[in-house]
């Protein structure tokens, strides 16, 4: 037993649940993590990542010194990568390469960043500039990053991974209700009597919310309906499991709506008082009979009827969903079908009901709130709506008309527009698009078209390899700030350790970058003199009404759920009790849409991708922690019936290929997946699922189709494998 020097309360850096952590520190080493049993979000419960997944902080590969490429230090033009000798880090290889990483001081690195960003801006204007924020960084970090690109470079090419996870849900909720966050608080599920979980493997991706769900079923007698192509753990707790074929959500949920309407189970009073477009919507439902849905999805029509009746006749029915709904080329339509179910039955605007998109990252909600999105300023103010830009021009000391009113490029589009006449300079803070974008072979081609790439991160990950300058930032345990969790709770993040090496908190790096850019551009200052992150949040609160009542003093212990309209307001556990932000909830008639690629003779399987309990997204953190010891390698899940037909045994090496790429990995023969469906987790660079995924986008939300593409699998013998490429440096 060790007596800690200090115990620091903060918030977990992994998923969107936002569990309270207590970091026990001895000699600046975190050696134990606990959680207070009175914490409002997690009641002392943690999962493996929160409790044990922190030693990436001490990993020897963590970069704690600013790095620049040799050619930059020598003032040379950017040499073509392909022709240069192999780059090394640190740059002391026997053959010097212009692409060697050279350790330098902050002054040099920051000046180089400012020089080259300003040079490219002067040459090619706002459209050449772009940035990715980070759903792992704090609200304050993200706010500053978008402020730099909007206020200084006058571009809205600002986005982050929300585009890749819940853009479909956000667009659907915006169109139908006028807002986008979870309507209710996750723990309210304890008082729901029926709830639907769809497209979410909650046990692995929001483990603490899954505990609430299991308790609701086991202790409170709630009935759970799981709609998911995989036999996820929650199926063990479910009343009904609807194993639909990936990409057929619209049919299944519209068929449920069809049943609710035909059997008169809808809430007429609610529809009349709170919604619009019902009549026309009902006409569009005619074709969605349960038999039609059974035909396309494989879910028995009778189960669809039972699910519809259960949900519609519940006292408090709730819907929870994840990326299985949104990560489709029809992600918006898919999420709309869920909104329709809630509007039909009136299961919204009350405690323990609602529409609950479970947000993936610790701060994806907050980064979106902070306007790290190409269509919105902070506080979801459309950049192209009158009056909004003016507010921020005033806040940032910018001449009238100075801010761009044009919609910016989204995450996937920023890279696909890379090139001499498109995006030339990209600033990436804490994201790993070379793991998380779809169709990575194509993405690699895109990222190579950039003229200047700044990466601000902890490790040189698959994206950092392409950077010109690497700025070493600090992880959650080495900085102050706030995260906003999936149920809109703004919580305090506290530094438990001093920054390691020369690394610095993101907000400090960004202020220094901004001041240098501003000086070079000769603009009046937009304000970058902050002594503490609390001053940054105060700036947000002055302009964003939903955050108006949030101050660091008020969130010292438990955090506040926005909207918090003023300093006396207690926060908002559930939304829409009186009205929807757009007034009436809108029914939007839908046609049947499905995945862009469907199986054929050449690619007879549907490949779907997802996450594991033990790992986190692109793997930058967890694959550098002892979690990687617990779960060191990728696998593909295949159903026993399919495995037998293709001569595949459990543990065997197989090759999975799609029209875009192929990976070699082990097969896991399991009934966790359904017949005809393969599943590969997205975390493993050596068998990256996103080499295979389809980069087709939802036309409205611009979210790629990670959840369904056509694939083939066949056994592979080890001698057929080429050596694994690593290429970290």
């Amino acid at each position, binding site marked *: 037993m*060790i007596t800690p020097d200090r115990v620091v309360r903060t918030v977990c850096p992994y998923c969107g649940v936002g569990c309270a952590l207590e970091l026990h520190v001895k000699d600046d080493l975190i050696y*134990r993590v606990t959680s207070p049993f009175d914490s409002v979000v997690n009641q002392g419960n943690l999962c493996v990542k929160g*409790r044990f997944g922190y030693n990436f902080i001490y990993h020897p590969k963590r970069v704690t010194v600013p790095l620049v490429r040799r050619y930059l230090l020598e003032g040379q033009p950017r040499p073509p990568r392909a022709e240069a000798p192999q780059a090394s880090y640190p740059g002391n290889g026997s053959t010097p390469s212009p692409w060697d990483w050279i350790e330098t001081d902050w002054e040099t690195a920051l000046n180089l960043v400012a020089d080259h960003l300003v040079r490219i801006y002067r040459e090619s204007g706002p459209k050449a500039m772009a940035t990715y924020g980070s759903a792992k960084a704090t609200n304050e970090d993200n706010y500053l990053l978008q402020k730099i690109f909007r206020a200084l470079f006058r571009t809205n090419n600002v986005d982050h991974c929300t585009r890749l996870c819940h853009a479909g849900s956000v667009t659907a909720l915006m169109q139908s209700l006028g807002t986008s966050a979870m309507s209710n608080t996750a723990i309210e599920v304890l008082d729901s009597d029926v709830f639907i979980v769809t497209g979410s493997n909650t046990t692995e991706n929001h483990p603490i919310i899954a505990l609430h769900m299991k308790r609701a079923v086991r202790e409170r007698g709630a009935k759970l309906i799981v709609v998911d192509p995989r036999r996820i753990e929650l199926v063990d707790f479910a009343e009904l499991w609807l194993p639909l074929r990936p990409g057929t959500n619209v049919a299944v949920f519209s068929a449920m709506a069809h049943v609710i309407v035909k059997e008169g189970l809808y809430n007429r009073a609610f529809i009349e008082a709170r919604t619009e477009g019902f009549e026309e919507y009902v006409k569009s439902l005619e074709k969605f009979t349960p038999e039609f849905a059974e035909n396309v999805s494989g879910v028995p029509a009778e189960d669809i009827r039972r699910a519809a009746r259960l949900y519609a006749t519940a006292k408090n029915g709730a819907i929870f969903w994840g990326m299985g709904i949104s990560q489709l080329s029809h992600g918006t339509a898919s999420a709309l079908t869920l909104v329709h179910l809630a509007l039909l039955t009136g299961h919204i605007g009350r405690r323990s009901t609602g529409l609950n998109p479970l947000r993936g990252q610790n701060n994806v909600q907050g980064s979106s709130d902070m306007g790290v999105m190409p269509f919105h300023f902070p506080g979801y103010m459309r950049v192209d709506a009158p009056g909004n830009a003016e507010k921020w021009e005033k806040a940032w000391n910018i001449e009238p008309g100075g801010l761009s009113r044009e919609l910016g490029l989204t995450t996937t589009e920023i890279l696909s527009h890379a090139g001499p006449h498109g995006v030339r300079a990209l600033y990436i803070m804490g994201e790993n698009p070379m793991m998380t974008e779809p169709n990575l072979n194509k993405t690699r081609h895109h990222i190579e078209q950039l003229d200047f790439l700044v990466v601000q991160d902890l490790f040189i990950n698959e994206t950092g390899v392409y950077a010109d300058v690497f700025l070493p930032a600090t992880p959650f345990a080495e900085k102050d700030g706030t995260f906003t969790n999936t149920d809109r709770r703004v919580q305090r993040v506290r530094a438990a350790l001093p920054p390691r090496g020369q690394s610095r908190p993101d907000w400090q790096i960004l202020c220094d970058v901004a001041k240098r850019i501003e000086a070079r551009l000769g603009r009046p200052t937009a304000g970058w003199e902050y002594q503490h992150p609390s001053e940054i949040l105060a700036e947000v609160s002055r302009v964003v009404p939903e955050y108006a009542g949030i101050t660091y003093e008020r969130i010292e212990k438990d955090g506040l759920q926005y909207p918090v309209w003023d300093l006396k307001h207690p926060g908002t556990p559930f939304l829409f009790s009186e009205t929807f932000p757009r007034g009436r909830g809108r029914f939007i008639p839908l046609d049947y849409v499905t995945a862009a690629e469907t199986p054929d003779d050449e690619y007879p399987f549907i490949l779907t991708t997802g996450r594991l309990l033990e790992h986190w997204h692109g793997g930058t953190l967890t694959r550098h922690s002892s979690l990687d010891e617990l779960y060191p390698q990728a696998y593909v899940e295949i159903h026993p019936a399919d495995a037998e037909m293709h001569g595949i045994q459990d543990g065997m090496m197989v090759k999975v290929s799609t029209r875009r790429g192929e990976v070699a990995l082990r097969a896991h023969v399991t009934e966790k997946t359904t017949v005809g469906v393969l599943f590969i987790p997205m975390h493993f660079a050596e068998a990256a699922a996103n080499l295979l995924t389809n980069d087709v986008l939802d036309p409205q939300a611009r979210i790629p189709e990670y959840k369904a593409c056509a694939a083939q699998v066949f056994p592979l013998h080890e001698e057929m494998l080429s050596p694994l490429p690593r290429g970290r440096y």
Partner: protein
Amino acid sequence: MSETFTLSINGIQVTARKGQTLLEVARKHGIDIPTICYHPATQSNGLCRMCVVEVEGMRLLQPACVVPAQAEMKVRTDSPRVHRARKTILEMLASTADLSEAPEIQRMMQAYQADPSRFPEAEPRHIPPIDDNPMYVREYSKCILCWRCVQICAEDAQYTYAINFSGRGYHTRIDTFYGLPMTATTCVFCGQCVGVCPTDALEPKSEYLLEQGKYPFPFR
């Protein structure tokens, strides 16, 4: 508001709600009753008997963590009989378990003047540490069988059921089914068990390594 009534604890009249245990009522009124196996996040089972109190009219001492408060009860939490029972419980625990990393129990031993060598013929349990996963280490020499880990792994939070009792009597210990390594069980390594362990019998691997000067090896 549910039904309330009064009872007396140590001669003081206190109010209780139906369904509250004696422990809850006492703590609510600032009356201290020591506990070992009890944890607010887990189901109480009255296993360790540290919380026993004397209730007038009842032949045996009553475990306050599970006995519901009733109207007109007359409870003593500090009688000589209670004191002697608690002292003996602590001495028996100390005779077989390694309590070196259980500061709360050590404080109780001092408070009750418990003599750890009272039972010299008792055989301390020497069980080698089990280091079978990257997340935590199990040192069952320190285990006092409070059952918190078993319960939090099961229906008190996690619904995972990776561990349970095995063996009988003196040989009772917490174990996986068939003694399998933890990685071969249903364990999801949430470490909820580590979070509720009162004696450090369950310890994060990082702390275990730091004690030996090996952390953050191999990451230093």
